[in-house]
């Protein structure tokens, strides 16, 4: 980058200098959009995981991402949450937070929560401790060392415990929970952090039908106040919660719209639902 360009970059009028931004700064959602993903590219060894991906998510929306394996869903989440560096493109949280120059911790502190495909909780600690660790507090070293739980925080933890239905297990070690309960605990940990944006990777994998239903309820109730992006393979589940669905294919957006629109979209039928149909046909043919 030439000197003049970097100078220009420094004096861009649409950005505040990093040192003037407080990390706790409010997210500017004047335009009603909370997440801007533009022109994202990423390749692993020649394999294009993300290919000029553009995605805008409105504030308070519940968005479902679907797509075949390798469509780039998880990779997209990795880039948004700072786990993976992308080759080019931009990701903004609100209008004022460039996520690409932040690390995972800073992004989490901005209010972006992430749930993994495989539930990861702190197995050697109690459910209560798990939630305490996730609370929205100052997470730097010294304040953490001297922190004490305030009554409001305890109330908050109780509230979350109630939402995720683990009141009975508050002092149980998280490692002793069932798979579904771990999924819930992880969602609870996200809630305890009071996030603006939730990225949830396959929340109902390994859940019973009943648990799935409750999860769907929870996620819909969250939307509005918070923005939720869900990656899911279970089409029934997606249909039950989604208002807007984005289909990813080979690292870029193939289609976007309501579930009905998506289902009638020719491209989607061809590359995604089509596969299922073809499979179904194939299976029928065999029989």
């Amino acid at each position, binding site marked *: 980058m030439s000197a003049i360009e970097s100078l220009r970059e420094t004096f861009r009028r649409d950005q505040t200098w990093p040192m003037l931004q407080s990390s706790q700064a409010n997210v500017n959602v004047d335009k009603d959009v909370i997440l801007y993903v533009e022109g994202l590219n990423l390749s*692993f*060894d020649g*394999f294009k*995981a993300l290919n000029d991906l553009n995605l805008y998510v409105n504030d308070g929306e519940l968005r479902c991402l679907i797509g075949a394996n390798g469509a780039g869903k998880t990779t997209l989440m990795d880039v948004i949450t700072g786990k993976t560096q992308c080759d080019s493109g931009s990701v903004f949280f609100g209008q004022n937070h460039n996520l690409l120059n932040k690390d995972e911790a800073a992004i989490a502190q901005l209010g972006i929560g992430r749930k993994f495909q495989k539930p990861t909780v702190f197995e050697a600690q109690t459910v209560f401790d798990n939630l305490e660790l996730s609370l929205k507090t100052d997470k730097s070293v010294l304040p953490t060392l001297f922190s004490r739980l305030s009554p409001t925080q305890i109330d908050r933890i109780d509230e979350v415990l109630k939402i995720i239905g683990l009141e009975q297990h508050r002092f149980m070690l998280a490692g002793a929970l069932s798979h579904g309960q771990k999924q819930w605990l992880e969602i609870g940990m996200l809630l305890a952090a009071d996030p603006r944006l939730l990225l949830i990777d396959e929340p109902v994998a390994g859940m019973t039908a009943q648990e799935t239903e409750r999860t769907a309820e929870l996620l819909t109730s969250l939307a509005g106040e918070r923005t939720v992006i869900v990656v899911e393979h279970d089409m029934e589940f997606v249909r039950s919660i989604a208002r807007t669905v984005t289909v990813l294919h080979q690292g870029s957006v193939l289609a976007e719209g309501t579930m009905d629109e998506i289902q009638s979209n020719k491209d989607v039928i061809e590359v995604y639902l089509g596969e299922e149909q073809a499979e179904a046909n194939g299976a029928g043919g065999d029989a």
Partner: protein
Amino acid sequence: MRHLIALCCCLFGLLSLPAFSAESPISKELLTELVDTKLSKLQPVVAKIEATSGEDALPLFNTLLAGKLYYVRATKDVVGQYTLDGDKRYQDVFTSQDVNGLDKPSFGSKEVKKIRVNNKLRVYLRKAIAGIQLTSKSPAVREDAVHALLAKLDKNTVEIIEELYPKEANKKVKEAMGLALALNVANDKAATVSSRLKAIETLSGSLENSVRNHLTKLTNDDNASVVKAANGALEKIAQRANRFAFIDQLFFGLSLGSVLLLASIGLAITFGVMGVINMAHGEMIMLGAYTTYVVQLLMPNHIDYSIWVAIPAAFMVSGLMGVLIERLVISRLHGRPLETLLATFGISLILQQLVRTIFSPLNRQVSTPSWMSGSWEINPVLSLTLNRLYILAFALLVFIILVAILRKTSLGLNVRAVSQNRNMAKAMGVKTHRVDAMTFGLGSGIAGVAGVALSQLTNVGPNLGQAYIIDSFMVVVFGGVGNLLGTLVAAFSLGIATKFLEPTTGAVLAAIIVLVFIILFIQKRPKGLFPQKGRAAE
């Protein structure tokens, strides 16, 4: 040169037994004549000996020239004086065997008499020696003779060389003779300046020490243009010498690199495939070295061939030990790399102590086969020791064989599959635990082979392997885990870097600098020079 001969004499004197008296190559009559003739009349006798015996007379002449030739008063036998532990003793001039026998006292100073020489005779002797050597049948002797003469050219020798020069058929000897003649011209103040300059020009192509000494002397010459030419020639020689010194250093770096490669390549396989550090890897090297030692003990009369037995034996010993360790310990600690590290460290302690108990804690000397000792002298400033050269070649050979095993055999296919995705390989029906055991055996076996190579460079002791575990790990990490080519590049670059740092910083500081460099390098590129890419690498 004379010192060297004296030294050799001493050594031979030490080793040989006075069991048989050798036949003298020069007739007894001539030798008696030598003893009986007065000093002033000695020269014709010497000439007669020169004429009749030729090369055989060289030891006699050399001893005479050195003033070490005596004769026994009683028998008139000619003997050479030498010194052993401060005692003056006497040996047969031709066979270098002690005439009294080393276990018996030597002659007293009254029993022998020195055969004296004067300056005139010395000059004659030198000329005679030079003449004999320069007309020797063996080109190597002739070449050595010319080189030896370079330091002490005089009119007589120059005359001989001038005479022989046109007739010389051997290129190298002719070159050396040309050098001697040029040296003579360059030093000859009576010669024309242009011919002297031309001679200096010829000299600038040589790396001989004596040539450099002469040129240095010439820089004080009266003639300005000669001084200038001499300086220029010296500079040119210095440049060439530097270039060869660089090659020499490079060679030592490559040699260290080959040792590192041998030591680390086994670790690279086990770490790459199983993700565990075998802290007992160094002890596998040690076991290999001790196997060499034991093999040599078992076949003391065939040291030259012992290496060929030791290599497979060491591979088997260390390899089996590796399989044993894998089956008994490592396989039970699957998925717990830090515990594996500790457990294998425990094993390394046990193995070290075991060797200490069996063989004693002292270092053991492993002898080098004769075909591996000595060095390859390329020119006066560059000579490569053969054992290092062989080990370098051996390391590359092992590397190639290993790559071939991994590329071409089904074991290799399985190993690669397991190292890339263990669970998937398992799902595909690869018997992962068998692959683990085989891999571990292979890696350890190669460590054993490395031990054979190391035993040729250093002493064999219980702590031999300890020093290599950190170095080898550094090599593996630097090169990139799971990448054999990376290991190769890393081993040689670290070896070369260390050897180039050493002259300026000293060995210890060089080791520290390299360590610190790698620590910093890992910060920047945690996956090494050649990382495995893609999502699988996470």
